[in-house]
């Protein structure tokens, strides 16, 4: 077995070369921070759903509960949280729609539909849906 003229191979892998990454790597560059900001937006998506369910629950329980829900939402803490959430949600929406052309590659007559058209269609849909929702909520 011990032939000295041949290199000796071990059965096991050598140690991988994996430099340790700092836990705070995302603070090192603005683009990294923007990335993690986009990822963290999901927490505010979850909060928005909880908030929406609290509203639906209050409306379900009756006019008095709805009124006390409205009073609670007027508190400075809740408003601040919702303003911050809104900023993150818009960050989510903008980054999502900007990525849409890469996710959906459409072809028409053998040619690829330009990316700006797809992103534009997404922004158009966003504006349209927002308008419809606002009209339904406000016109009563």
């Amino acid at each position, binding site marked *: 077995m011990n032939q000295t003229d041949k290199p000796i191979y071990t059965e096991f892998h050598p140690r991988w070369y994996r430099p340790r990454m700092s836990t705070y790597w995302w603070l090192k560059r603005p683009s990294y921070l923007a990335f993690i900001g986009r990822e963290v937006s999901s927490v505010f998506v979850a909060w928005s*759903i909880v908030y929406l369910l609290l509203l639906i629950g209050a409306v379900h329980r009756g*006019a008095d509960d709805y009124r006390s829900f409205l009073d609670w939402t007027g508190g400075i803490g809740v408003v601040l949280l919702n303003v911050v959430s809104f900023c993150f949600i*818009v960050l989510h929406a903008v980054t999502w729609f900007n990525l849409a052309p890469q996710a959906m590659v459409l072809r028409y007559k053998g040619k690829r539909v330009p990316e700006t058209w797809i992103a534009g269609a997404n922004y158009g849909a966003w504006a349209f849906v927002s308008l419809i929702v606002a009209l339904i909520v*406000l016109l009563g």
Partner: protein
Amino acid sequence: MAAKKRSIEPLLWVLFSAGGVLAALLIPVLLLLFGVVFPLGWLTPPTHEHLLAVIGHPITRVVLFLLCMLSLFHFAHRFRYTLYDGLQIKHLNELINTVCYGGAIAGSVVAGYLLWQI
């Protein structure tokens, strides 16, 4: 040879993706109105009667349920990877998965129950 185990990852990714679209389309306007505009008194909030009628409509209920369920799965999937890549918490992977997806399932059940009752 053991039977091929199908990965659930593609399904989770589809839920993440669908939730991302619905959240991007619907949450900004809803949060702006109910979280900022009405609380700050820029516009008068809708009456209870009107809101009950809107939420009670079958189409609204379906849309709201899909919004809640898919957005929660969107959150679960993305938050899981934020902890994984961002904070590099890898040893708690199973616990994080359970809490994230379990939370999404629980939230969906609550949303379904509320919207069913209304």
